[in-house]
């Protein structure tokens, strides 16, 4: 049997935990899905479940390859979750970009309105918005196949938001698949052709 069509970049079926789901969703390469919905409806839980950060059941596959066949760290490197409040494990910014990632991060910084110097220095000297942009850079320089973004521009002003969206659209065009959780209907419309609403742990088309 031959199948000309490539499998979806990310295929989810029957994905569920005690708190949310089941979810069925396919996301193609170079496409973006937006999810909105009230706080506590399970949007973050859904993203964490896809990244396998919380116990869950059901099937997930990347380019047709089942999640179980990846080690958990390998899966998370490819299907990368970026939290609404990004955590930092060192007081300085640089250790969050090991090896060649530091150069890549410095190169990306101006695109988001940051100076290359802000990729150095102490994390707690940065504003919430600056940290949020650095978290986005931190995710992108790891070159994931799927990016799971939880309110990536929640702390950004309109200009910085536009820069972040432009950068994400550029990556989308290059093949990245994105699931974005956002409270902004405008952002959902700008970014995604497919939009869903999360309500009490269930996903429905917007």
């Amino acid at each position, binding site marked *: 049997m031959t199948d000309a069509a490539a499998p979806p970049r990310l295929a989810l079926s029957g994905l569920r935990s005690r708190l949310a789901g089941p979810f069925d969703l396919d996301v193609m390469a170079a496409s973006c899905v937006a999810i909105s919905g009230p706080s506590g409806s399970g949007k973050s839980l859904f993203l964490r479940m896809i*990244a*396998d*950060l*919380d*116990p869950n059941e059901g099937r997930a596959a990347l380019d047709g390859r089942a999640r179980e066949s990846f*080690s*958990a*760290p*390998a899966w*998370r*490197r*490819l299907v*990368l*979750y*970026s*939290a609404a*409040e*990004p*955590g*930092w*494990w060192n007081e300085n910014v640089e250790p969050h970009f090991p090896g060649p990632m530091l150069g890549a991060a410095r190169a990306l910084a101006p695109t988001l309105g940051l100076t290359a110097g802000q990729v150095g220095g102490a994390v707690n000297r940065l504003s919430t918005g600056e940290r949020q942009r650095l978290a986005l850079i*931190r*995710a992108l320089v*790891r070159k994931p196949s799927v990016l799971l973004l939880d309110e990536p521009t929640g702390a950004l002003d309109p200009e910085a938001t536009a820069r972040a969206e432009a950068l994400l659209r550029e990556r989308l065009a290059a093949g990245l698949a994105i699931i974005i959780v956002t409270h902004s209907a405008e952002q959902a419309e700008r970014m995604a052709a497919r939009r869903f609403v999360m309500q009490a742990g269930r996903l429905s088309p917007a």
Partner: protein
Amino acid sequence: MNPILLTPGDVAIAAVLIAFDGALSIYLGLGLHRQLAWAAGRMVVQLVLIGYVLSYVFALASPAVTLLVVLAMAAMAGREVAARPEQTLVRFGNYAVGATSVVLATAITATLALTTAIRPQPWYDARYAIPLAGIILGNVMSNASLALDSLLGGVVREKGAIEAQLALGATFSEAMLPLLRASVRRALLPLINTMSAAGIITLPGIMTGQILAGMAPMEAVKYQILLMFLLGGGSGIAAIAVALLAARKLTDRRARLRLDRLTHRGKT
């Protein structure tokens, strides 16, 4: 030189000092006299009981009974380790981690001392094995409990940082390494303080006891140094065992951080 033996009357005279504390509590309204009397009474009963038990066990000279006594002491020590941290692992996890670690640390260091340095005949002679195991357990217990408290408290405080690393593809060990380091470090600092202060600020209890019992000071000093090294090794083993075992209970085969396996309790 023979030890100066005490009669019950000699001890009773010293009990006057506790009575003085009690009077002080009543006079100043400290409200401590009941607790004081209870604790003093408990102490006397516990020690007299253990005195009888030890006499009996020494006379018995049975390796099985000696092992049983040591294991019972280890179980108590494990309970103490488990009871300190504010965060507890579900399904008696604290207890399992605490008991395993202190047993491991004590077994290794006590066996080393009994078979190489002290060398009684036989090496498991209860007269040496039980007191030695007791003092090691008592010391590594507090180190183990510091390590456990530090790790469990840290994992809750640093949840965001740990999960950020996991989400970016770090292994669980990579994400936990800073916290493991910090908790082992925290557990070993008191040891360094104790060793530095020994002989200058404090005269260690064992040494004092042996000198009072008639041993020449230099002999007592050698025992004390040996003991300090044993406690040092034991603390290191217990701290690293606690940290690794507790960390393992906080993850699963998909390298997640499982904080659902922790419950918080009020300070005990």
